[in-house]
């Protein structure tokens, strides 16, 4: 589940997930929604698949690094990675398989995924959550 937060220049959202994997997948989905809400189609007909592996000192850095890497791959390969599978996801390590759809044009350009106020934590209901600010 995502919720828009107030920010003058950029797009800020609160991302949630029942598990860390869901939080990461929702973060990716939210980023894609900003880039191009219409591009993602049937997951069974993905145009390409890529793998990534990252380590970071804490879950917040891991999430920001994961989304930053997905963003870079999106621009380089001109593919929106709509679906993700995590063969491994711990608080400081992620291995992910990304499934993408080619695009010709995006609606918005995200310059970067920022650390501004980002803090991955579990709330009272046990859900993982964090604010995320995308620099447009």
């Amino acid at each position, binding site marked *: 589940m995502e919720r828009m937060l107030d920010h*003058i*220049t950029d797009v800020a959202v609160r991302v949630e997930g029942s598990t860390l994997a869901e939080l990461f997948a929702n973060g990716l989905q939210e980023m894609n929604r900003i880039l191009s809400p219409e591009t993602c189609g049937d997951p069974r007909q993905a145009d390409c698949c890529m793998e990534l592996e990252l380590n970071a000192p804490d879950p917040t850095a891991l999430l920001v690094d994961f989304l930053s890497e997905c963003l*870079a791959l999106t*621009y380089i390969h*001109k593919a929106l990675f709509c679906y993700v599978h995590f063969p491994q996801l711990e608080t400081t390590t992620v291995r992910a398989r990304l499934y993408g759809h080619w*695009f010709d044009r995006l609606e918005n*350009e995200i*310059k970067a995924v920022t650390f501004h106020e980002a803090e991955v934590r579990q709330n009272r209901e046990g859900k993982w959550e964090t604010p995320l600010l995308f620099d447009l």
Partner: protein
Amino acid sequence: MKKITKEDIQQRKPYLWEIPTGFRPDMQVPARIIASETLVDDILDDRSLQQLVNVTTLPGIRKAAFVMPDVHEGYGFPIGGVAATSYPHGAISPGGIGYDINCGVRLLASDLDEADIRPYLPELIGALNEEIPSGMGTPGHLVLRDEELDQVLATGSEWAVRQGYGTARDLVYTESNGCLPGADPSRVSERARQRGRDQLGTIGSGNHFVEVGYVDALLDSRLARGFGLREGQVTVLIHTGSRGLGHQIATDYIRLLMEAMPSYGIRLPDRELACVPFDSQEGQDYFGAMCAGANFAWCNRQLVSWEVRKAWSRVFGQAAKPPVMLYDVAHNIAKIETHVVEGRPEQLIVHRKGATRAFGPGDSEIPEAYRPYGQPVLIPGSMGTSSYVLAGTSASSALTFGSCCHGAGRRLSRTAAKKQVNAPVLKERLQEAGIYLEAPFRRIAEEAPIAYKDVNLVVRSVQEAGIVVPVARLKPLAVVKG
């Protein structure tokens, strides 16, 4: 974080306000605001000033952290911020420059008058839209090989001119001649290179644009003459930066510096302020990469200028004189400069994030032809409103490290603007007012004039503060946005 109210701010002069160091124990210097009282009231609505107070905690910061009247909330640094740290041991912070390294503005001046061009506007905007790749995902006309990209990163606009995409004059009238000598292409990651390889000559999306306008009013005839401007003259304003290459450099180094910071004993209130000593290995690596990103941005604006000139020739014929360069300024950059601090000239690392250099008359950094008048400062307004050409004053160095505002400054979020603006109606109204627009409706709503502060108030603030002298006001005729 403690909310800042009007009671926390002291008025030092009519257009200079200060949050003293006593406001928070970790402040190293005061936080200063250049703005009229009306704009200060607006600024208090968002968290710009809390972010400015955070900036005052940077290691080695000198004199004061500043915000300009167009300031608005960013992340880490506010947008419209200036901070100078002592050279060479003070901090360098990628967050004080921003993700879009050397985002900036270039002004071209044509020999045509507004009346000459009006009948051709629909054709001209069509040609500009065809020649200039805009929007996201649209590649540029060039795909650079590794060695070509290295040359762009090392030499900036000069590479483009050598390839025939500009003239020697273009280099003379670009800040730093379109090339920072500290660039080290080897410090730019493979990811950044991959992102930038096909993006030269593109404007991207968001608030970037190419705008054809005209000189609506001369505000100082002597200075206008000095810059080669006359009433009614058609101009072209280009706003873009270092595209994905610069964004990736900032992403890479903010992350790297965040991990390096503890080894220098640096603790800061916001991770986006991540910094290291300028003379550390990490600081030097970032500076080398940042300068390379800045060179890419200048080369990008040079390629966009070439595309504008192609469109010009298509519409007005090969015999028509293409628009010539008036000036090109960066507004997201860090540079080594000398300014007076505590009565003595001092070398500083000046960070400008959403702020323009504004050097006064006589400075050797200003092209010789403009040197008697001061450096041109280009202030784009919002789509459909006025833009300004200003000139830096001799007082700017001592007041604000030779810095000025960079635009009108956002006052509404994109979401709020989209809720309030009917884009098709706005487009029609602008066209009725003689302004042609080529942009997706979504972008028209996000970038509508209502989303920005009144540029006239912003310019009046920097003028009254003594940083700049207004030279000319420009009005838009046709705007291309991505």
